[in-house]
């Protein structure tokens, strides 16, 4: 699903660069001397920057090089608040393109990521505290839904932290870390407390 898109973008970049129409290609777009924004690139950014950085590290390296050549902007940061199971809040700054799981680990926030973001577990389950922000996220893929099926304490606004990628419109997002990780029955059975 992502690869065809990336190939389209990649092919586009190659085409434009070779045509000489662009002075440079950066992550946020193609700088042109005379032709204003390319819808294709502009509408892709979140997908391009986020998921691909995660899942296709070799592409991310390429993009980094392009960015350092062409971009003269500082790396964009957004504000994210994590609320842990005791209600304690921690505000952190997350660079655009980084997943919430990675950001949590970089800031010593206790969010388990057993499968290292490969969509093979649900330990990085977070709850998006505001519906507005939840709606801004792209729908979960089948694979993410498969793992959310197994998360304990699932809510209407639950997502996997490794799949939420920082983008400018998520500035100010608040994520709650669910209270219990002790439920381990696939069918939702909760053992009685002793």
């Amino acid at each position, binding site marked *: 699903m992502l690869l065809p898109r990336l190939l389209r973008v990649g092919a586009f970049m190659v085409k434009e660069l070779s045509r000489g129409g662009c002075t440079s290609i950066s992550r946020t777009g193609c700088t042109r001397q005379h032709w204003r924004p390319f819808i294709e690139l502009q509408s892709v950014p979140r997908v391009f920057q986020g998921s691909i950085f995660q899942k296709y590290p070799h592409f991310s390296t390429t993009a980094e090089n392009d960015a350092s050549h062409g971009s003269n902007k500082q790396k964009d940061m957004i504000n994210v608040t994590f609320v842990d199971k005791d209600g304690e809040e921690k505000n952190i700054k997350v660079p655009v393109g980084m997943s919430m799981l990675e950001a949590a680990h970089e800031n010593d926030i206790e969010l*388990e990521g*057993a*499968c*290292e973001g*490969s969509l*093979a*577990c*649900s*330990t990085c389950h977070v709850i998006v505290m505001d519906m507005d922000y939840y709606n801004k996220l792209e729908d979960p893929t*089948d*694979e993410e*839904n*498969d793992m*959310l*099926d*197994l998360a304990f304490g*699932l809510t209407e606004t639950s997502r996997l932290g490794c799949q939420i990628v920082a983008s400018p419109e998520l500035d100010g997002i608040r994520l709650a870390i669910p209270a219990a*990780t*002790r*439920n*381990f*029955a*696939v*069918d*939702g059975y909760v053992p009685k407390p*002793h």
Partner: protein
Amino acid sequence: MYKARAWLSRSFTALSSNPLRVCVVGSGPAGFYTAEKTLKAHQEAQVDIIDRLPTPFGLVRSEKLQQIVINQFSRVVQHERCSFFGNVTLGSSVSLSELRQLYHVVVLAYGAESDRALGIPGEDLIGVHSAREFVWWYNGHPDGKNLSPDLKSTDTAVILGQGNVALDVARILLRPTEELATTDIASYAWTALEGSSIRKVYLVGRRGPVQAACTAKELREILGIKNLYVHIREDDLIKSPTDEEEMKNSRIQRRVYELLSKAAASASSQPMLGQRELHFVFFRKPDSFLESNERSGHVSGVHFEKTALKGGGPGKQYAVGTGEFEDLDCGMVLKSIGYKSVPVNGLPFDNHKGIVPNIRGRVLKNISGDSSQVENGLYVCGWLKRGPTGIIATNLYCAEETVGSISEDLEQGVLASSSGLPKPGREGLLQLLDNRNVRPVPFSAWEKIDSEEKRLGSLRNKPKEKLTTYEDLLKVAT
């Protein structure tokens, strides 16, 4: 709390001037997560993981996409306070009581290597196999090689059960063999499947689609097989109010049901010539296996009783026979009705549930559930503790609970008092094994096996070519 625990752990060390010695039996996900969490929670603990196979990782080894998990587990074993010993069998190489003398803590995480039995006539007919054995067979498990299923004398296979294992075996039978050629399926299995005459597979469940035990991902995979005719009876998809309630409470059931109804809706009315067929059959309970008239001793079909769902409320509906019967002709049956753990000498066992009686991982002396009757220093984790359900990640939480119990017991002095004396641990085990002429296989040997399998695989354009006999495995390992 953490500080107190850390102090106690340290003081345990100081008092007895020896580290906490832990033995984990079983090197699948449950064993590894337990080892990892124990090492993390107790900075002086020494953890040994033993397994009866020369290779670690248990069932994970037979699954695709698990390289990340294997990497994680490899890191655990490579920890300086951790060791892996393959080819060491609980019961024959070393007994449970010996292990409990050698170590302060023993955690049993050896999973489930047997099957639930149906207990119906004809179960011993040739052609009736357990799905578990079939999976071992095509995955090159050294205990599975001799299954030699006959795939040539029939075009129909019936699979009893609709869980993920059932779907997995159905997929192996129905997938075009060209696709299988580049997986790490055992070569002899691939050859057998190439010559297979099986074209029709029935997946039969006692209850309805709302109660199907599989999960969405596995269902999507099988429904996505190219050029496959999928059939589901429309009537079977009708939902009762209780069914609706069940689906409301469970995302998993909802998503599975949706996939099944979509598949039913988009199916053509007839299979095309040459198309392989997958039939989902619901509300059928196996009553007996039918013996062939032409080939005595061989199965020729399954005699089913139609069922209806009865009471209990959402999530608790069970199948009840209606007195009406129906037969399905077939030459092969695969029973996928659940794995079962194997009891060990000296270990209390709940035969009904197929687990070791325990409370939060602490083994109980008997199955009465009395929490005061705890076996000190003995714990369980994984399928042996919970029954054979869940996925790999389920064991993460399971291990968390068991290690939590171990830490609590340490803190409360339950372990320290009975084991104030130093325990021989690793050195003791190795000495004992040496005296018995048992040669444990270390993790570095697994790495040799792994690279050899990959090397052999590269010669045939496969990710790896599995070594499938104990002989071959041990030869490369040593």
